[in-house]
């Protein structure tokens, strides 16, 4: 996303354009029956508050995708608590995996490749989020402001400014709520400042890959939360 930009301000608009095609790629979530979509959404929301579970889930998805099972995955699954193990199985089944036996393993297979790739894509981005960012994202889910945050990124001008009078952005007028969002964005190397009736977003100097990850996670959670 650095190509063709001369300033930090330009990075967000380039990232915005570059990630627009992702909306279409999350379509397998939108095509799910309402019940399945809600179940997957609820499971992922719980995952956001459980760092250890998220790490194992990402590892299992990775092995499932590659068709190769490394011993660490089995070890990590064994260390999960029984409710977490149940959630893991439920997630994989909802995401299009056919599990043979009690555990996911080499005998299992991906029956719905598109859906699984979409779910794994989102899980992999969540797993790479910086410390505590996933939990902050979970809070934003509970507050039902994920669509607001996604809209915020989409309507930013080239200078990184958006108008808080935009009806979709109204929830951000609340100072405390804005504080939570600010912390989430800072964790993803994006600084948010409220200026009168607008918000100014700037990418921090030398950002890591976190702004891209934030775009992806917000996009994915937004698609999955449509029905919810």
């Amino acid at each position: 996303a650095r190509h063709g930009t001369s300033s930090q301000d330009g990075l967000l608009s380039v990232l915005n354009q570059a990630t627009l095609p992702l909306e279409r790629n999350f379509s397998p979530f939108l095509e799910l029956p309402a019940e399945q979509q809600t179940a997957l959404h609820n499971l992922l929301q719980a995952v956001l508050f459980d760092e250890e579970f998220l790490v194992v889930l990402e590892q299992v998805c990775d092995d499932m995708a590659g068709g190769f099972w490394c011993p660490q995955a089995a070890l990590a699954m064994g260390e999960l608590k029984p409710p977490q193990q149940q959630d893991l199985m439920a997630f994989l089944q909802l995401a299009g995996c056919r599990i043979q036996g009690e555990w996911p393993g080499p005998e299992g297979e991906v029956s719905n490749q598109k859906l699984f790739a979409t779910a794994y894509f989102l899980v992999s981005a969540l797993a790479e989020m910086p410390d505590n960012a996933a939990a902050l994202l979970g809070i934003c889910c509970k507050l039902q402001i994920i669509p607001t945050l996604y809209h915020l990124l989409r309507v930013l001008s080239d200078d990184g400014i958006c108008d808080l009078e935009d009806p979709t952005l109204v929830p951000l007028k609340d100072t405390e709520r804005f504080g939570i969002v600010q912390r989430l964005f800072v964790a993803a190397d994006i600084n948010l400042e409220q200026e009168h009736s607008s918000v100014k977003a700037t990418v921090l100097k030398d950002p890591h890959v976190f702004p891209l990850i934030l775009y992806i996670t917000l996009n994915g959670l937004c698609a999955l939360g449509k029905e919810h």
Partner: protein
Amino acid sequence: MFAKATRNFLKEVDAGGNLISVSNLNDSDKLQPLSLVTKKKRYWCWQRPKYQFLSVTLGDVLTEDQFLSPVVVESDFVKYEGKFENHVSGTIETVLGKVKLNMGGKGLVESQSSFGTLRKQEVDLQQLIRDSVERTINLKNPILHQVLERRNEVLCVLTQKIVTTQKCVISEHVQIEEKCGGMVGIQTKIVQVSAMEDGNVIKDTSVLLEIPAATTIAYGIIELYVKQDGQFEFCLLHEKHGGFEQERRSDPVYLDYLACREFVFMDMPD
């Protein structure tokens, strides 16, 4: 917790990403100079590669009667002491269905982290390159045979490691912001590392790990490019990638590597 502490340490001292943090304490003693490590490429650009230690060194997999004895240079690396402040405050009120959520709280956590004095052990690369000329890897070695069977894995050799010189304690502070019996709280986990000099004990922690001196907390590798006849070269420049010259079998996989990559980025610039 150990993984988080070593990762945080590298954030401070290795912005360029040349070093890799050790995730499992159990792997620490497997990391010896010239140890072989496999690097698994991942599907998407934000995913960190996965590394697996093979419990053998480069010398162990050379064809018969060939030996390598690396020259290891040890030097001071850094004395790592960090002070972190985490100031959090906030109140949230919202309605979720019929349940009203109240959440908020204030807190200030100030913590210091220190692995103490760290040493670096580094293989003399010039010497290694000179010694490796005309040497060949035995690709029929059972371990390498298994690596070759997998897809997207590169053979690497460990050339440097960062070790502790004194006992350290890693502790985790769990901080939950919540009030008014709200159902949701922001839970933050702060990992703190303390070098032990006078047998000091940390209080007010939920989990505590004591790691011994001489524990490897980070390491550096060089990828190998292995030709079909077993000759190999070190990939010394960033642009040069390792791998195996021979063609891989086209085994069916559950989710095709390229298909998975292209699934999302087919319309995106690289």
